[in-house]
């Protein structure tokens, strides 16, 4: 066991059991999985992506590239979880990934034998012969070896939530600078949100031995958090990572609500997406320690120096018994102090610099090797470090036994979020690191994220920046003073150490196995832009998103290309800053709640009467009604058509778009929107209208009714309801704002039923005895407002089925009552409800164009409605409709189709070829737009667009439907199959 007897921010009173690869261990509340594994001397945790080299725990944060495990099991399995960022909970189950047969013995480690071949970009140079083998052999092998963890393949059982938040100041990161800023702003009365993706706030104060105002750094942090929690104007969000900066001061963040529990509590989401609008944001995300590049720097037991300190100080875990420090800055020496304070031997300290720092004097180096201007040139041990070969300034090499190497190559400010808007960071000569230059609006970095590495400067920077924000918000800043800060080891010069002449496996990108020699090879082949380097070597494309690799890689590239790192530049970070679950972004919208459902007023009635429903946009519409004994949908539909054409049927058409167009200039506006005239429509009459887009093609059709001089009631197709509403608002607000016309949707206000069939008048007369419905009194296309049981209703004599038909509308609150009353009144006449399928059959029998014909690619002329285009007035689309491409006589026009063999089935989506023509594209003369079985005619019928269709009535053609394997000889006929003269309508 490597748990220290005292210290750490863990709760020793609450032990937690967990398993890793089936073996049982225990840790404490406050541990991460990584800390608990180290406490139990578990070193080997994973295998690397390409070479399957043994990997351990490198860091103590979300920048971890190596210790990836699959957390949980079954449908809750979370592949590629960073052990260093997983809070331990009782009963936690984790397993290693990407190894076969086991973590200890991974056959794919044989890849290392082929490492001379498996260099960067090798796959671009081979696998080309023979071509067929790529999909059959090479690629399957590569794909099976690739990838890290596996998805369970089962639906994600957890639920996710979303929240919108608004504040004056968003503080990203609750380390010393962030807490100081939040405290300043909080005390000054600003609305503050503080987010930190760790389970506890304090940042590196939790990982170092430091003192502020007489308390330990951790206790000071806890005190500040407690004070902030007392302010109603401050919102504290631990376990919450800000992942992206977006336009309009908007920030995306993910709160891990229940990831620290075995399962979310009932009703509790696993995670919550926060969409935060913050007038100001301060990036206090700290800095990320840079690895050093030396052979074997990926062996389990080689760790970042700050991580070693974190495990010692925060988790009371000794990651090793005998350590070697390799550092190019003071951090390594600070870790040596932490190790000795915990009673752990320091076998050697290797510093790339010439002088020891001042804090070295506090170390007992009596039996330690100290090598200045030195470097580690080799690591002994494979699955765990056994020793390190050190070369000192004079070139002498000594091998020192050790089981832990703590390395520190300096610090990179964690500036990723700041470059989300595409602004390149700039190289600071003074700090030897990249800093933000241009940033998103009202966004700046503070503390070590801005290069102010010391504790004192970080705290001061937090106060300064927050004070400026408070003043900008027009408030008076609170007096802030944070006294007597005991400094930890400052990190001066932050030299970027770039090795030269490296032999062996020295890793730059640990997870993607990118070595220093890969960078050299890429440069020699001309991939010298950092973007080419990234893509050719895959450096920075792993799950740590280049946080540890990029600067070292760019340093090596600059060395190879004899350019400065400032000239080479760096990659801009893109959202998300750390990877986020897709489930949390989708939130509530999955499964049947992917999109809302819209129900008509008769929905329940229809369900009670055997309706089968179909989706039409977001609406559910009855497609047909299954009567007892009917097992095949066509049986129900034929019955509905026959019953309607033979007697009377009723259909819910409430989903049509309905728009009130009102005001003195309503008539003028409709004249300009519709291709035909509407200002001439008398009050109490309805008229069929055709609407074009401005490019001259057909947009939509529908009837419009005039209920008063200044009141039109416009209907649209269900699919185009929103589009027409927007079009009307565009016309009256943007094109012709001078018109005095108002418009609003009344789609939801009116429940509307179509009553069709020879008995429809009789049924309505029974329902409305005191209205004169005689043909002469209520002619075709008449309309009026009446009362039914005291409630206003509207009656229209319009027909889509071609039968004598009416539409009746009532306030949707009484929609079901009216429907039931009509069914009662119609019972003696054998009234049946019919669905969208029967409606479709009847409109095809009548040759009415609908959505399939008006699919945005057809003109009025194509659909036989060319004469509706008025020549007396301008209207939307008139000019562009004149273009040759739209008036070319060679265009296809609407015709009907009958199968020569009455038993054959016609289908929409088929094409038409001249009789005997070879089935190839050049011979296509038309396409079938709508088709259905006509019970009225006893055979399948269809509408089609055919080149020169009108002149080819009676001609035989071949219907070609290759993907459904049917060729059907057909005869072109007039599109109106039933009652061409239209007597029934007007009877």
């Amino acid at each position, binding site marked *: 066991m490597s748990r220290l007897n005292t210290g750490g921010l863990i709760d020793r009173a609450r032990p937690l059991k967990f398993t890793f690869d089936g073996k049982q261990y225990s840790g404490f509340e406050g541990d991460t999985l990584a800390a608990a594994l180290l406490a139990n001397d578990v070193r080997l945790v994973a295998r690397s992506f390409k070479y399957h080299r043994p990997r351990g725990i490198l860091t103590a944060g979300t920048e971890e590239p190596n210790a990836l495990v699959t957390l949980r099991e079954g449908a809750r399995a979370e592949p590629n979880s960073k052990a260093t960022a997983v809070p331990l909970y009782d009963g936690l189950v984790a397993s290693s990934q990407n190894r076969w047969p086991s973590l200890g013995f991974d056959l794919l480690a044989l890849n290392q034998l082929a490492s001379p071949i498996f260099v960067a970009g090798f796959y671009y140079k081979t696998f080309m012969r023979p071509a067929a083998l790529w999909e059959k052999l090479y690629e399957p092998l590569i794909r099976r070896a690739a990838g890290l963890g596996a998805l369970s393949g089962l639906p994600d059982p957890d639920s996710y939530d979303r*929240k919108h938040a608004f504040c004056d100041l968003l503080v990203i990161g609750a380390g010393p600078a962030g807490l100081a800023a939040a405290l300043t702003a909080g005390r000054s009365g600003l609305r503050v949100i503080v987010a930190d993706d760790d389970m506890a706030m304090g940042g590196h104060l939790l990982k170092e031995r430091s003192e502020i105002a007489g308390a330990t750094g951790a206790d000071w942090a806890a005190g500040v958090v407690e004070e902030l929690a007392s302010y109603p104007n401050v919102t504290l969000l631990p376990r919450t990572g800000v992942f992206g900066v977006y336009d309009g001061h908007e920030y995306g963040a993910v709160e891990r609500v229940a990831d620290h529990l075995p399962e979310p509590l009932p009703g509790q989401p696993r995670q919550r997406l926060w969409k935060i609008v913050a007038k100001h944001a301060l990036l206090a995300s700290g800095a990320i320690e840079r690895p050093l590049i030396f052979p074997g720097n990926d062996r389990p037991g080689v760790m970042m120096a700050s991580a070693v300190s974190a495990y010692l100080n925060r988790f009371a875990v000794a990651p090793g018994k005998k350590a070697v420090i390799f550092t190019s800055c003071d951090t390594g020496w600070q870790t040596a102090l932490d190790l000795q304070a915990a009673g752990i031997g320091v076998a050697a300290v290797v510093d790339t610099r010439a002088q020891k720092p001042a804090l070295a004097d506090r170390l007992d180096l009596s039996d330690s090797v100290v090598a200045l201007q030195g470097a580690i040139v080799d690591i002994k041990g494979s699955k765990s470090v056994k020793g390190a070969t050190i070369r000192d300034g004079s070139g002498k090499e000594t091998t020192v036994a050790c089981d832990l190497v703590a390395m520190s190559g300096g610090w990179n400010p964690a500036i990723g979020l700041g470059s989300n808007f595409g602004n390149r960071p700039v190289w600071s000569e003074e700090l030897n690191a990249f800093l933000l230059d241009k940033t998103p609006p009202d966004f700046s970095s503070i503390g070590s994220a801005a290069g102010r590495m010391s504790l004192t400067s970080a705290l001061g920077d937090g106060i300064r920046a927050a004070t400026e924000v408070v003043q900008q918000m027009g408030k008076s800043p609170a007096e802030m003073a944070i006294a007597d800060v005991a400094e930890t080891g400052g990190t001066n010069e932050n030299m970027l150490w770039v090795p030269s002449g490296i032999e062996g496996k020295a890793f730059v990108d640990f997870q993607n196995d990118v070595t220093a020699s890969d960078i050299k090879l890429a440069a020699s082949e001309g991939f010298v832009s950092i973007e080419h380097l990234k893509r050719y070597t895959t450096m920075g494309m792993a799950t740590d998103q280049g946080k540890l690799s990029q600067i070292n890689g760019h340093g090596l590239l600059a060395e190879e290309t004899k350019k400065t790192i400032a000239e080479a530049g760096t990659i801009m970070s893109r959202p998300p800053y750390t990877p986020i679950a897709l489930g949390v972004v989708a939130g509530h919208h999955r499964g049947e709640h992917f999109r809302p459902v819209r129900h008509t007023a008769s929905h329940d009635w229809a369900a009670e009467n055997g309706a089968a429903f179909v989706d039409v946009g977001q609406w559910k519409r009855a497609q047909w009604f299954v009567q007892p004994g009917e097992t095949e949908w066509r049986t129900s539909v034929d019955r509905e058509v026959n019953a309607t054409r033979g007697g009377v049927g009723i259909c819910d058409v409430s989903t049509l778009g309905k728009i009130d167009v009102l005001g003195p200039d309503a008539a003028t506006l409709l004249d300009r929107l519709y291709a035909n005239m509407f200002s001439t429509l008398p009050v109490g009459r309805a008229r069929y209208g055709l609407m074009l887009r401005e490019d001259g093609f057909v947009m939509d059709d529908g009837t419009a009714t005039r209920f008063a001089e200044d009141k039109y009631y416009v209907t649209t197709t269900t699919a185009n309801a929103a589009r027409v509403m927007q079009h009307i608002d565009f016309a009256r607000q943007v094109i012709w704002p001078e018109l005095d016309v*108002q418009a609003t949707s009344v789609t939801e206000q009116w429940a509307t039923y179509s009553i069709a069939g020879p008995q429809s008048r009789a049924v309505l007369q029974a329902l409305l005895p005191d209205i004169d419905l005689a043909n002469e009194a209520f002619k075709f296309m008449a309309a009026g407002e009446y009362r039914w049981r005291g409630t206003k209703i509207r009656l229209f004599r319009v027909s889509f089925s071609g039968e004598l038909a009416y539409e009746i509308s009532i306030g949707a609150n009484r929609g079901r009552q009216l429907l039931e009353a009509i069914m009662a009144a119609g019972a003696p006449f054998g009234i049946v409800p019919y669905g969208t399928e029967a409606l479709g059959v009847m409109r095809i029998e009548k040759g009415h164009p609908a959505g399939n014909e008006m699919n945005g690619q057809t003109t009025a002329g194509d659909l036989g409605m060319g004469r509706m285009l008025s020549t007396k007035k301008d209207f939307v689309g008139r000019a562009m409709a004149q273009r040759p491409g739209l008036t070319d006589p060679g265009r296809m026009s609407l015709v009907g189709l009958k199968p020569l063999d009455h038993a054959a089935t016609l289908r929409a989506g088929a094409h038409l070829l001249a009789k005997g023509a070879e089935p190839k594209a050049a011979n296509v003369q038309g396409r079938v737009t709508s088709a259905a079985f006509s019970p009225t005619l006893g055979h399948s019928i269809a509408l089609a667009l055919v080149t020169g269709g009108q002149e080819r009535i009676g001609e035989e053609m071949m219907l070609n439907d290759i993907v459904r394997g049917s060729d059907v000889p057909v005869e072109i006929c007039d599109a109106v199959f039933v009652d061409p003269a239209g007597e029934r309508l007007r009877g």
Partner: protein
Amino acid sequence: MDNVDFISRRENVSLAAVMARKGVTAADIGGALAVEIPKAPAYRSGSGLGLVGTGPGTWLALSETLDNEWPSALEAALGSLASVSDQSSGYAIYRLSGANARELLQRGAAIDLDPLAFSAGSAATTVISHIGVTFWQVDDTPTYDLVVFRSMRESLEHWFESVAASV
């Protein structure tokens, strides 16, 4: 909605869309209806009539009682000042009251509902969970009234239930 005690349906309220005609000001409309009329998105009520600002020159009017004749009476009262459309059947109306109400709405609406920004009399037409809604704050409990197109009330109620479980 069984498990959501702080949300209830308001049944008998008549509704109408009021749309000012060219050149007619909010004051003209307010005068005709004897009620202080909001110019911005806000809610005002008086003499048995509520008015919610839904756009420049457009309001949603509510009567306190369900009355078939009310929309035509409103239209008559406004004469040529405005166009009126009966919407009594167009919407389902919900009342949400209590601290959970603000938290629930904030989960759905991308609008700042903090008392500093949204208080009694404030109103907004926006979208919650892909569903268009208009809501306004009635008092500082806080109590909100919310209208949604009737055809989508089940979808919104499901959203209420799923979010209320974690509020």
